[in-house]
């Protein structure tokens, strides 16, 4: 089979926050780099981030990276790797300042410094009281950040391939990564991007759930590609449900609303978080707040005709504060909830939001896999950063504003590591295996020739409904086991999806079918890993894990203080230990988590 090949030093898949940050590093170092993206860079879902990016700048009150580190470890329910966490929080200030230098329009304090607001789980003095750590541009932080980084890339002449969909990872016999296959969406042409370094920054896969704050394009392509190429996926059972998605619509209302003083109320008007988290109240960690909301609803204290949501109330705040600090939320409430939040509370429900797990990486951004008796050996030529990667800094539960930080710090470090390896001549263009493109062509040919297959929309919907029901905010032993069977049955249908439109030019039916191939890998990894983990930890909470002294909150450190690794082949699980040793400071010791 003939196909065209394009050669680059580096190929980056994804132009959201993580991909753009990595690209700056490579372009500034003069590397010949291709950045592939399904959508124009500023349309990536980083654009939707609202609340802010964490850094202990201490602009409003005393703060310290060590406190930030403590909060992140505690937030992760001790599943985060403490070396990567230390690396992230220590690099936070520098990365945020860099953004300011690129031109990002942060809000300002009277003294001209970057404005910071409180956010859930971020505390001063090792968990004492909320601290202002989230650096924000109104409630449009992601937009301001993504545009500033795109603009920086224009300045340093990064080469973009816009509306190119990467389809499969190319690996040789030895397992080295040599690039990707990709389709030009405008023409349908398939090309191999042959690279010495391949960086995945493809974002999350929130679309495996029925109700999600994620964009249509968040289909876990990088994670799916990695899984098909034999890379295990780490900690995929951990999904964050954001407490405040607009009921019915899924659109996010940032936690910054509670940071600015917003309060959650049940049908009786009660500020119920006071009962669940006496200290942090509405600003407790996200998993804690989401579970409290679902408990309120399950116990009959939900609002509305079906008692199926609670209310987010900001009517007691000064209208000026809302319009100045939360203008986007005011718009969203009108557009998607039909309420003017200056006068009425907003109906909200916990909604799937963030994928804590992903492609296993270390703090240098290298993809690491088990090999022989070692559990974390770098895959030559392969790097990942952002939501598709698992460094793992978020462990079992991510703190708000730590994700934008993650993509900055690890986007940069993945880029830096790649540059270093390229410059020291450690990487060359290894010959492409003869079958480089076969896997991809087989997928595309199958779609072109499939008869009597499954409908893409129906199959995706079945997967989303199953995940929502069987692997949601609360998980049940029997439901999980049943969910595994259902998802495996849907997996068999995904292998036989059919599209009516077989045309070449901008065929979005084909794009969606190819995306579903990735979504289903994520769904399988999630439910299989969740079914196996018989404890509760962070966002993964199941009914059969009891809150007794040996296992506080159902957390079983004796048996489960370890990362899951799911392999697509054989639907198999492996485990690796959590890195409890930070880089320079003492280990943050295990404790029962309470807010």
């Amino acid at each position, binding site marked *: 089979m003939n196909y065209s090949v394009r050669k680059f030093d580096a190929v980056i898949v994804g132009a959201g926050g993580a991909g753009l940050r990595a690209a700056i590093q490579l372009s500034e170092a003069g590397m010949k780099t291709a950045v592939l993206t399904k959508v*124009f860079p500023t349309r990536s879902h980083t654009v*939707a981030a609202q609340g802010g990016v964490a850094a202990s700048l201490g602009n409003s009150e005393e703060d310290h990276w060590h406190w930030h580190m403590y909060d992140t470890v505690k937030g992760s329910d001790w599943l985060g790797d403490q070396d990567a966490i230390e690396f992230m929080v220590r690099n936070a200030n520098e990365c945020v300042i860099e953004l300011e230098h*690129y031109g990002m329009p942060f809000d*300002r304090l009277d003294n001209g410094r*970057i404005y910071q607001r409180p956010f859930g789980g971020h505390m001063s003095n090792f968990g004492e009281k909320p601290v202002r750590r989230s650096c924000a541009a109104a409630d449009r932080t992601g937009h301001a950040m993504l545009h500033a980084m795109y603009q920086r890339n224009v300045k340093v002449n990064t080469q973009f391939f816009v509306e190119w969909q990467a389809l499969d990872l190319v690996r040789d016999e030895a397992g080295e990564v040599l690039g990707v296959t990709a389709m030009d969406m405008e023409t349908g042409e398939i090309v191999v991007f042959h690279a010495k370094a391949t960086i995945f920054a493809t974002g999350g896969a929130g679309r495996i759930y029925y109700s999600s704050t994620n*964009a249509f394009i968040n289909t876990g392509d990088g994670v799916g590609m990695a899984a098909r190429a034999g890379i295990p996926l780490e900690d995929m059972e951990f999904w964050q449900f954001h407490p405040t998605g607009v009921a019915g619509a899924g*659109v996010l209302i940032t936690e910054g609303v509670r940071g600015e003083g917003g309060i959650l109320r049940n049908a009786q008007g009660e500020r119920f978080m006071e009962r669940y988290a006496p200290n942090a109240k509405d600003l407790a960690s996200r998993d804690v707040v989401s579970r409290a909301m679902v408990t309120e609803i399950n116990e009959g204290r939900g609002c509305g005709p079906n008692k199926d949501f609670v209310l987010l109330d900001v009517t007691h705040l000064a209208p000026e504060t809302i319009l100045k600090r939360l203008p986007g939320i005011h718009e969203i409430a009108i557009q998607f909830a039909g309420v003017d939040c200056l006068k009425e509370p907003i109906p909200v429900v916990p909604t799937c939001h963030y994928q804590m797990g992903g492609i296993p990486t270390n703090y240098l951004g290298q993809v690491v896999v088990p090999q022989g008796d070692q559990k974390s050996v770098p895959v030559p030529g392969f790097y990942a950063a952002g939501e598709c990667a698992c460094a793992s800094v978020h462990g079992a539960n991510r703190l708000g504003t730590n994700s934008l930080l993650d993509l900055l710090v690890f986007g940069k470090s993945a880029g830096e590591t790649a540059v270093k390896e390229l410059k020291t001549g450690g990487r060359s263009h290894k010959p492409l295996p003869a079958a480089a493109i076969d896997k991809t062509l087989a997928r595309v040919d199958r779609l072109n020739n499939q008869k009597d297959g499954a409908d893409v929309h129906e199959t995706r919907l079945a997967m989303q409904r199953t995940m929502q029901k069987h692997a949601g905010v609360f998980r049940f032993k029997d439901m999980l086991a049943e969910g595994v069977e259902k998802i495996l049955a849907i997996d068999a249908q995904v292998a036989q999806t059919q599209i009516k439109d077989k*045309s070449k030019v901008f065929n*979005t039916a084909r794009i969606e079918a190819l995306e579903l191939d990735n979504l289903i890998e994520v769904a399988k990894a999630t439910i299989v890993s969740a079914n196996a983990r018989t404890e509760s930890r962070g966002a993964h909470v199941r009914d059969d894990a009891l809150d007794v002294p040996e296992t506080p909150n159902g957390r079983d450190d004796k048996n489960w203080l370890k990362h899951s690794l799911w392999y697509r082949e054989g639907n198999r699980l492996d485990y690796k230990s959590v890195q409890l040793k930070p880089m320079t400071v003492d280990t943050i010791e295990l404790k029962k988590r309470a807010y």
Partner: protein
Amino acid sequence: MMPTENRTVQFKIYRYDPDRDAKPYMQDISVELDVTDRKLLDAMVRLKVKDDSLSFRRSCREGVCGSDAMNINGKNGLACLTDMSTFPVGKPIVLRPLPGLPVIRDLVVDMTQFFKQYHSIKPYLVNNDPLPEKERLQSPEDREELNGLYECILCACCTTACPSFWWNPDKFVGPAGLLAAYRFIADTRDQATTERLDNLEDPYRLFRCHSIMNCVDVCPKNLNPTKAIGKIKEMMLQRAI
């Protein structure tokens, strides 16, 4: 008010696949909506289930990514922010691609010219001072100058509604690009005002704007490119004196 029952809605949609169609045509198609389908984009997603060959861009479904700009009943807008309740009952909803740009397929236009103009204004901060160790300072008042400018989502609703852009897409920067130019001019941290004004000192790039205000009328983010253009023109005049 939200309707309480499912209802059928008629559409007339511009269709064109260069591989199959000698020329574009308008497709009549209807779809039954669910009560939860609130926005035009919800209806279009449902249409696509019925006819999977219908092509359009979409991503965030909340008005921040700028993907789904199109011409809706004769006016540019975002499908995801257009409420179904705003359409007159009983009349088909007419969907066309953004005007003035080449059509790739159906509602998908080629945005090359639009982004070329955006890039032509050097859309990045220029500041040649040595980098301070911390953030550059900016007062809240100076920062406020950027409100109404930095929020642009590059959807192209404005530029493709502008007659001056239709006639001179290669020469006139267009409202989105000029808004971006002013975003940097207005930024107290940027040092390239002179170069930015020089870059626009030309019979076409800036001065083709005749303040027709179509751009302001269609911007889904309620931004005001005409005002920004006015400010640039004012600065030009002032430095001419």
